């Protein structure tokens, strides 16, 4: 029974308890606070936000590496149950994880072959020929050719870009239907970034993979995903198709983000950027109401600081959580 939606995230919350002297509860860090979204089969979405907005925690909760405090993740229509070991094993084989730092993610004492073989051994692919075939296939997909040259190398013998391709190969080896990539290129040189992102895009299209691409770099998302989710203070504040959001950013925070990005244009020397004052909120004690209101240029008094804005639809997939759109919605 194939399902249209590959992944459904419903009112997901992940809180971390702050303790004093190891046992006194003194508060909570609301890293993910009420996140809703769907991911279609074969679709790539980007989650964009600054550091500390909870985007990595969101990734880890989806990967079942963190226990959600509330809400539920459904994969292929099935609720993910983190306590059921067998179910979890199956889920982990269906979801690939591309880590941020390739050098830290690859064990330095294993060759590329062993790194790629290990997940298959664990998941009971006993046929040696089948394992070998998959390793060759995935390395060819990732343009690590000639495969014979790479297969016996250790991670330190590879360049940064090749290491990251190794990480992607490992996440792909069990033939998952979802990849979660947490800042896959932020540690790489700009000239290599595009290449890695294009490879990811190609994998996604060739194998009909769902991809969740977590990043702080808005300028690359246009090329590599269908939809953008903008995250701020533990919440998704704007969602929509890439072109809609870039052409018509609706949340004041999204506008500020787009404004802050430089284009490689020598005329920039003469203009200053508009940057909202202040810092992103602490997730241990977020401001009441809309999380962005202390920095917001379009702040409505008596409204924004009192109530959390609901989600308004702006047509199509475009949704925004902001009181400015109350009447239109």
């Amino acid at each position: 029974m194939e399902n249209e939606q590959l992944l459904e995230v419903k009112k997901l919350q992940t809180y971390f308890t702050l303790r004093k002297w190891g046992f006194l509860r003194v508060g909570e860090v609301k890293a993910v606070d009420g996140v809703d979204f769907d991911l279609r089969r074969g679709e790539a979405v980007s989650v964009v936000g600054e550091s500390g907005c909870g985007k990595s925690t969101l990734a880890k909760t989806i990967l079942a590496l963190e226990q959600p405090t509330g809400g539920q993740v459904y994969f292929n229509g099935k609720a993910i149950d983190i306590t059921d070991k067998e179910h979890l094993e199956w889920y982990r084989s269906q979801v690939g994880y591309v880590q941020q730092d390739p050098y830290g993610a690859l064990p330095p004492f294993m060759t590329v072959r062993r790194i790629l073989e290990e997940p298959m051994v664990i998941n009971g692919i006993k046929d040696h020929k089948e394992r070998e075939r998959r390793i060759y296939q995935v390395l060819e997909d990732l343009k690590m050719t000639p495969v014979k040259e790479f297969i016996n190398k250790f991670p330190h013998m590879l360049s940064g870009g090749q290491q990251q391709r190794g990480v992607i190969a490992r996440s792909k080896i069990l033939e998952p239907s979802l990849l979660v990539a947490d800042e896959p290129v932020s540690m790489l040189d700009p000239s290599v970034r595009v290449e890695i992102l294009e490879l990811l895009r190609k994998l996604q299209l060739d194998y009909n993979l769902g991809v969740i691409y977590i990043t702080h770099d808005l300028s690359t998302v246009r090329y590599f995903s269908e939809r953008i989710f903008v995250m701020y203070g533990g919440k998704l504040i704007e969602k929509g198709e890439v072109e809609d959001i870039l052409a018509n950013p609706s949340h004041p925070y999204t506008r500020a983000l787009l404004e802050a990005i430089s284009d490689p244009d020598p005329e920039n020397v003469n203009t200053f950027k508009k940057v909202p004052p202040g810092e992103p909120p602490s997730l241990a004690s977020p401001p009441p109401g809309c999380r962005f209101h202390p920095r917001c240029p379009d702040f409505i008094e008596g409204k924004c600081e009192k109530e959390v804005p609901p989600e308004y639809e702006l047509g199509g997939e475009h949704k925004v959580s902001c009181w400015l759109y109350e009447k239109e919605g």
Partner: protein
Amino acid sequence: MNTQNDQFRVENLYLSFSTRRGTVQAVEDVTFTMNRGQTMVLVGESGCGKTSLGRAILRLLPRNVQDYRGKVFLNSQDIMKLSREKFRREIRWKKIAMVPQAAMNSLNPVIKVSEQVIEPLIKRGTGRERRKAMEKAREVFQLVGVPQDFLERYPFELSGGMRQRVILAMALITNPDLVILDEPTSALDLLTQANIMNVLKRIKQERGFTFILITHDIATSSELADLAGIMYAGQLVEFSRAYNLFREPFHPYSRKLMASVPSLQEKKELEYLPGQPPSLLEPPQTCRFLDRCPDSFERCEQEPPVIEVKEGHQVKCWLYK
């Protein structure tokens, strides 16, 4: 027109390190000139020698230096001729200051930021000299946009963007003739990054500071650049006014690099560079870009000369001979 006196000029600067595996040629034959009040950005991939060039200008070198020569003119004085002690007393931090990479995490956590910022100014640390230094610290804090009461705080009480500004204040407090900024925004968030760039731009316009900005982020560097240099494998392959380089790069490497920068405004096909830069360990005597160059021909087997294609626009490539 600017006189010689107002220029900062680097001529034929070489820097190499000796390692167990051979000589690493980090900086090779770099020549450029900039005027007071201008900002030059130095762009390149990691490992291309851009940080080494910055450190070579400031003589902050490790012990295994094999070859370090060339001329560096500051206010028409060749500072390479100065003795080590004289350089330390008169040039380093007084005339040329640096904001090193990831410096915001290197503030001493148990000393108040004011003490750390005034350190370059005080020799004995008591009495009148100290008070004057504090006065100056207040002034630079205002310049970089840090509230005055932050002077009495400890580094952990400040956010990343504020710490970066404190580091910047530390470099500016001696009113140097040249400030070298090594990746000043790469560890920061997007909005903070835009904020720091605004600060740099403002102090450049108001005070006429001269900056060398070392970065790999081409899009952000365009915010500040008057001049731009592209480094590849230890060599400065193209150098010109930023406007020309961003609009019409000549060197095949620069062209590829510019084409790989994603843009929000326009939809363009992104390109990338296949392959890797050559190892700086005993580099080949051909053009360094030969293996990856789409336009290479026989002549590229020899090292290309620096060619002036337009006034003030140097390219190190045989295509323009």
